[in-house]
Structures are given as C-alpha cells and as structure tokens.
C-alpha cells in the first residue's frame, strides 16, 4: 500500500471521472497515514499496533448549485467513481438556504511551518523505550505499582486539498506521542492515579524524562488525600485544566454555532465585554509550540493567528467560508470539509492582555493564605478536569465536572479525594482574579495558571 498521496495523479483521476459524470465543480480533502504504537504492562509488551489509513472526502456541486458530499477509504477508481455518484445523489438534498463555496483564500500563500520530518523508528525500538520508561516510573516511588494506561506512538501522515479551480494544498507531517498514567496505592488507602503526556515531531525528540518526572510527581502528590467540604472556593486552574474548560465552551467563539442558535454569543456580540479586562484569548495554530499544526484548514484556507478576546472584549469569531460570507468577513482557517462545514478552534493562547493593567499580580498558590481571596477555607487547585463530554452544557453555559486537584490550606497541600467543580463559563470569565507564573505550552495551547474566584465545589466531607 502506498504511504503517500500523489496530488497530481489524484487530480487527473478526479477530473476524468467528474467529466464522465457531468460534474463541473468539485473539491476534495484526502489523507493518508502510517501509525505504529506500543503499550506495555509491567515489563511486557501488552499490545503492538500498526495501521495504514487512506481516506478521501469529495464534495460536488450539482446543476442547481447545491452541494453533496461522500467520504470513503476506497481510493480505487471504482471507489472514487462511486463516491462521486454518492456525492451527486446527496447534492439533491443540499441546503438551498446556505450553499458552500470554495474559499476565496484556497490559493492564498501559506505560512511556512518548521516541522521537521523524522524517520519512523522500528516498533521494537518503541517497545524498548516504553518498557524502560515504565520501569523508571515504577521505580520512582514504592506506591507506584503499575502504569495501567501508557502508550508510545508515532505517525507519518499527509493531507491534501484540491478543487476544480486549481487549488492544491499538500502537507506532510511526522509526530510522536508518549503518555504515562500511573496508579499508586498505599496499604489501607484508595488507589490514586495521574499522569503526563508529551508530543514531538519524532520519537527521538520526545521529552521522556520530563514525562516520567511529571507523571511520578503528579501521582505521588495525590497519595495524601482527604475529602473536601462542599462550598465555594477560590480556585486555581492548571494551564491544562483551563484550556480544557475554554475548549469545551469554544462555541462562544464559533460562528457556525452562532448561526445555528446554539452558542451563548450572537452575531452582534463582537465588542461585548465577555471577561475581565485583563484577559486575552487568541487562536493560533501556527504557534511553534503546536506540534502537528496544520498549514491550512479543510477548505484550503491558510491557518492564521486570530484574536478572539482582547482586554476581555470579544473581538472575532472562528469562521469557515460559509459563515464568513454570512458575517461579511474573511474565512479564518478553522473549517472542516462537508456539505455543512464544521468550524472549530486550533490551539489557544491565553494570558494577560498586553499593556492592560488589572488582575492581581504576584499570585503564588504556595504562598499559603496570604492572598485575600483565599480565606480560611483554603485554595482549591484544579489540576485536571474530566468527563467534559458529559458535564458541560455549552449552549447553556453551565458545567459540573469531576476534577483531580489539591486543597492548599495553612501552607499544606492535600489531595482532594473526589469532588466536582460547577459553575457558569460567563461567571468564570468575569471572576478571574489573575494569572500565576509563565504561560505553559501544552498539547492544546498556551496558558498560565489561572485564579478564579468563588466557584462551587462539591466534596464528600
């Protein structure tokens, strides 16, 4: 099986098939990838996996200008012909009220990304590396007996966007990832677990030592646990947790969701004070910290940095071609590919607004109860949120989410046994007290620790 896509040959095949079927306007997104991954269990290989994938999504416009779509993993001539027929049949049910078009930026210059391509390592090399990492992590603390969730994976991939007006986008990429999720248990106590993740352009570039160190620290830090009393607390979100929360409510910035009536924002919300005046949120898939960044979106529009919130004020929305046309702006490079095109964020940059004063300075969660917002109850540190798919009602603005974290009180840190944090995203954005530390690069974005006032915590004490 070929492991790359030949854009020229694909265009030639599509043009011939489309001509035969009387289709004059079409575009496509194609992708192929080769993956290898390993998992281990107490020094033994648990599962070794490999995958070769190819897929294509075809859009066609019929005589009435309506759009139909079909996706397939069958890239044979028969498969492509069948996909064209399927897309043409689907176009009879195209939405007359909102017809997609080619992005006006589908041939605009792309940013040059520094994405070195790495040779894929043998799966047995990956296995040895992961076994060693597991052994190292288990050896970090007597209570860590297993690393039940672990994996070392590498991918070589390629994606293409073509359209019948000559647009041709192509991008090759290699990536690797490591996750280590350890389980620790002490006699007579409940098991505790935590972990860490690293991504890089190749397996040789992964920060394995850092991943082990972080996984061990996080896991061990949860061994001394106790229930927390239900009540309202000042909370400090880790960069990962705050990015997860913002990501779960990204429909606030999503023009597609606004047009569909399922966003808290409205078409005329631009200019509204959404958050405290010292908060900025950008979407920037081009940030060098975004491993595996795409140079273009599903419609071929170049990826670009976009200001979403500056000075706490909503500045822009994420757009596809169709939503941009409806709003009278340019596409922003956040589209998928479909009859109804989805819109989504790439990679958030969250932090203080440049040149804007406000927000409390010098915040340090380890400085005990020295901060006026903390009070006698102590400070809740939210290390990671879970079950976002179940506990977030994005169209209502509400959330109620389990979390792993600690209570910092009187200079002591104690892991919280089992608890949820609940609130409303608009209240959170207006309740930010300030930021702590330098922004941290994570797989989902860039963010410092974020202090938020008066959130509801449910515990079992």
């Amino acid at each position: 099986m070929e492991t790359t896509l030949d854009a020229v040959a694909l265009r030639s095949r599509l043009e011939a098939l489309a001509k035969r079927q009387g289709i004059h306007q079409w575009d496509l997104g194609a992708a192929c990838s080769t993956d290898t991954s390993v998992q281990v269990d107490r020094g033994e290989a648990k599962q070794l996996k490999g995958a070769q994938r190819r897929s294509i999504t075809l859009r066609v416009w019929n005589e009435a200008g309506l759009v139909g779509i079909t996706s397939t993993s069958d890239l044979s001539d028969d498969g492509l012909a069948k996909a064209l027929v399927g897309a043409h049949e689907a176009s009879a049910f195209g939405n007359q009220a909102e017809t997609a078009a080619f992005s006006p930026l589908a041939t605009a210059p792309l940013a040059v990304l520094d994405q070195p391509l790495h040779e894929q390592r043998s799966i047995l090399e990956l296995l040895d590396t992961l076994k060693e990492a597991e052994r190292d992590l288990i050896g970090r603390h007597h209570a860590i007996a297993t690393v039940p969730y672990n994996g070392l994976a590498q991918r070589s991939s390629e994606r293409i966007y073509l359209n019948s007006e000559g647009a041709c986008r192509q991008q090759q990429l290699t990536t690797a990832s490591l996750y280590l999720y350890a389980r620790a248990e002490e006699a007579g106590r409940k098991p505790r677990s935590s972990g860490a993740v690293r991504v890089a352009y190749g397996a040789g570039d992964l920060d394995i030592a850092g991943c082990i160190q972080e996984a061990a620290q996080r896991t061990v830090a949860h061994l001394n646990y106790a229930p927390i009393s239900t009540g309202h607390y000042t909370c400090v979100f880790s960069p990962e947790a705050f990015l997860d929360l913002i990501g779960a409510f990204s429909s606030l910035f999503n023009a597609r969701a606004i047009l569909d009536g399922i966003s808290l924002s409205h078409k005329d919300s631009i200019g509204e004070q959404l958050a405290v005046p010292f908060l900025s949120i950008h979407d920037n898939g081009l940030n060098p910290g975004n491993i595996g960044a795409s140079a273009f979106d599903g419609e071929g529009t170049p990826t670009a940095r976009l200001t979403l919130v500056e000075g706490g004020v909503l500045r822009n929305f994420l757009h596809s071609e169709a939503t941009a046309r409806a709003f009278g702006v340019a596409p922003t490079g956040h589209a998928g590919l479909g009859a109804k095109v989805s819109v989504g964020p790439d990679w958030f940059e969250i932090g203080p607004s440049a040149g804007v004063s406000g927000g409390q300075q010098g915040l340090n969660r380890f400085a005990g109860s020295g901060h006026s917002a903390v009070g006698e109850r102590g400070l809740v540190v939210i290390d990671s949120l879970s079950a976002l798919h179940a506990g977030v009602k994005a169209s209502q603005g509400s959330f109620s989410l389990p979390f792993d974290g600690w209570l910092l009180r009187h200079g002591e840190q104690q892991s919280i046994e089992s608890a949820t944090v609940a609130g409303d995203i608009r209240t959170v954005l207006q309740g930010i007290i300030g930021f702590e530390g330098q922004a941290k690069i994570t797989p989902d974005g860039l963010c410092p620790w974020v202090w938020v006032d008066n959130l509801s915590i449910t515990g079992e004490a």
Partner: protein
Amino acid sequence: MPAVSELHEASWQGRLESLLGQGQAAGADLVELFIERTDHLGVLAEQDTITNVSPSFGRGAGIRVFLGHRDGFVSTNDLSDAGLLAALDQALAMLGLQRSAQSLSHFDGLPALRDFATQKRDWLAQIPSLAETTEALLRGTDQLNRHGQHLQSRRGSYGRDWQEVLVAASDGTYAHDIRLHQTLGLNVLAADGEHRASVGRRYGTTDSPDDLRQWDAEAAALDLCQSAGRMLHADYIEAGQFPVVLANRFGGVIFHEACGHLLETTQVERGTTPFADQVEKPIAHAAVTAIDEGLTGGAFGSIAMDDEGMAAQRTVLIENGVLKRFLSDRAGELRTGHARTGSGRRQGHSFAAASRMRNTFIAAGPHSPEELIASIDHGLYCKAMGGGSVGPTGQFNFAVEEGYRIENGQLASPVKGATLIGEAKEVMPRISMCANDLELAAGFCGSVSGSIFVTVGQPHIKVDSITVGGR
C-alpha cells in the same frame, strides 16, 4: 449506490487460508483476520431544513497475531493480496516472527462458513430511501415546533450504519455477519431571557431495516418538549449527599459506567478493577442482579456474533449481589483465564477487539417506582440522564439532564446542573431497591476498541446515598 454483500463469496476463503497458514507457519500461536465493509449515512435537520447529508463507505482489514500472551495488530485499507500480506508481515514482525518459504504450515484450512447473514443480504434495499429519511426527520422537527415553547434550536439527526464482517482465525473460526444500526436523535435548546435548557433524546435499533418508518415522531417530540419546558426555568441543584432514585431506561448508565466497565477483562488485565478477585463474593446489595447479553431482538447492543466470530450469549454478571462472571474476549481469556463470553467487540477494522458490553441492565425487582420515591424524605429523582464516564481507579460520574427534588416522599420542583459522582465499590451496595419496570435505552460506548453500539437499562432504582455535584 448502496453496498451489496460480498464478503460471503467463496473467493475469500482461499485468500484467508493462505494468510492464516503463512502466519502460523511463521510461528504464530494464532492468527486472526477481520475483514470489514461499511456503508454509513448521516442526515441532519435543523429547524425546518435538511442541512447535512453525509454518506460514507469503506473497507479494511485488521490482522492480529498472538504469540504467548503477546499480540501484534495491524489494520489496513488495502484489501489486495499484497496489502494483506504486508499487514501480516508487519504484525508478525512485532512479535519477532518472519514468514519463510521453508516453513511448513500445519494449518488444516477453514471449516464451512458460519453465515449469520443469510437473511440479511438485502437489508440495504429495504431501508428507507434518502427521501423518506429526510421527510421523517423534518416531521420530527416540525413536531418539536408544534409542541415546544421558547425553542431557539430544533434538531433531528439520523445515522445508519451498515457493516459486513468476515472473521477467520487459525483456530478454525470462520464466520460472516451483516449488522444494521439506525439511530434517531432529537435535541432542542429552549431559551427565555437568561434561562436556558438543552435537552435531547436518542432512539436506536439494530437489525430492523423498517425501523425509521415505525417512528412515532409526535410522541418523541412531545416527550422532549415537555422535558425542555420543565427544565427551562428549573433551579440549579444545591450540592450535597442525597438518596437518589434513578429512572428506568437510560438511568442504567450508572451501572454501565460505575460497574459494567469494571467487569470487562481489559480492566482485570490492567489491574484497574477492584473486583478482580471477587468472583462468587458479594459486591452489591442483594437487591441487585445484573445481566449483559447480546440477544434481545432489535436492541441496540444486540449482536448475532461478536467481532471474534463467537455467537452472542446471555451473561449473568451479578446475581443477588454476588459477582458471577466477567465479560471476556479472546485476549482476555488468554491473559486472565476468564472464559470468552461472546463479548469481543470493536468499532471497526482499525481496532483490535476487546471485552465490551452489549445490552447491559439491572434486572427488575419487586417494587413499584412510586414505592421508591415514597421511601425518601429529601433526595433527588433523576428522570433523564446525560453521559458519563469512569476513571482509572473506578471513580464514575454522570450528568443528570432532567432532575426533580424529592420532598417528603413526593416529587417536587425540577432542578438542573446535577452530576452524580462516586466509586463503584461504594455505590453498588447502596442500590437498595429495584422497581418492576425494566426498560432499555440505546447508547454509544467509547473505550479501548473504539465507539460501539450498546444498550443500557434498568428499572427505577434507589441509591441510598450518593454525592451530587451542583452549585
């Protein structure tokens, strides 16, 4: 241009036997081949317009090789002889094995095909046309408009998944099946000033080509609109620990998340279930009997055979509070000793099968639902559940989509924003009453072998105390 069944054709047998023989000759203990063809249709109606029609089709193979307790798994979209052989070579190499011209195969060939699909070959011709499907969805959103108030968004979605699979293994497994899953979803967002409520329902069946034609759009819309109307101005619930009554149907997600996942041998392998050494020991209240099966006609999690070619079974997991069995697949049996239960399932060819649930439910008890409510002075009634999940140490959580306070043994005001959290080991003994109104509900379950079709279910049950996250 819908797909037609073709994996049952005799030409496949020789190709598969060649691969299995070569794999075994290379030194593998067992080689398993999973060949798949799929045909999917997704349709979305919003307000009174069809806004998305998304057909897709595909094919692929998953090749799994076992050596001792280890296995290597490779998936590919390339079903040519060369493509399959390359995938086999890669899987063998993962275990340090290599094909050799000198090696002799001891593989005796495949037996006669166990064909579970003989009555299913023309299903795609029987299902509703695209035009019928769009009409049904628009009927649904129209009914929402007729029965709902303050509706800012009305959505109807339809998904149809046709899958043809062929499973062959060097232990003589050779089986063929066709599956058909159809699902309908209705969702509304009601808004009135600052008050908002988003509510949804999903309906799903398996192996019922005519199902969409039987759908009662008005009844579905009415049910949903009543929920949205009640929840729109509901208060957020206060946090705390309460006795809780969970309604039947999708209330069964609590058992699925809190306990069902911990009874899969994948969890035994990882050492992440607290029940690993508890077979024949009490792990739940004596009121609880729980079953997982793949046999109920039309249920979303029913299967004629699992994805390892084994016929479906009925597995009693817990009987009167005592743990009886784990759900096991081929690898689970190999690594944990728990016998296979026909529970080896996967989303598709790119996932290795794992022990997974099918139709999982708590059996009916002796009480009426009203008796459960009446037994509580101050608590929470969870009429409709959202999704949930279970963590690596058995902590579970799930969202309550439609809830009501219970005051003095009677239902009181509606509440929203509740999340139930806890640990399976602690909650199972607290399920003290089961009602007599068992019903099932369709859902999707995501786990190690991808997203699969499942059914959850239960009668109304009472949990004596559970932590409720709120504001």
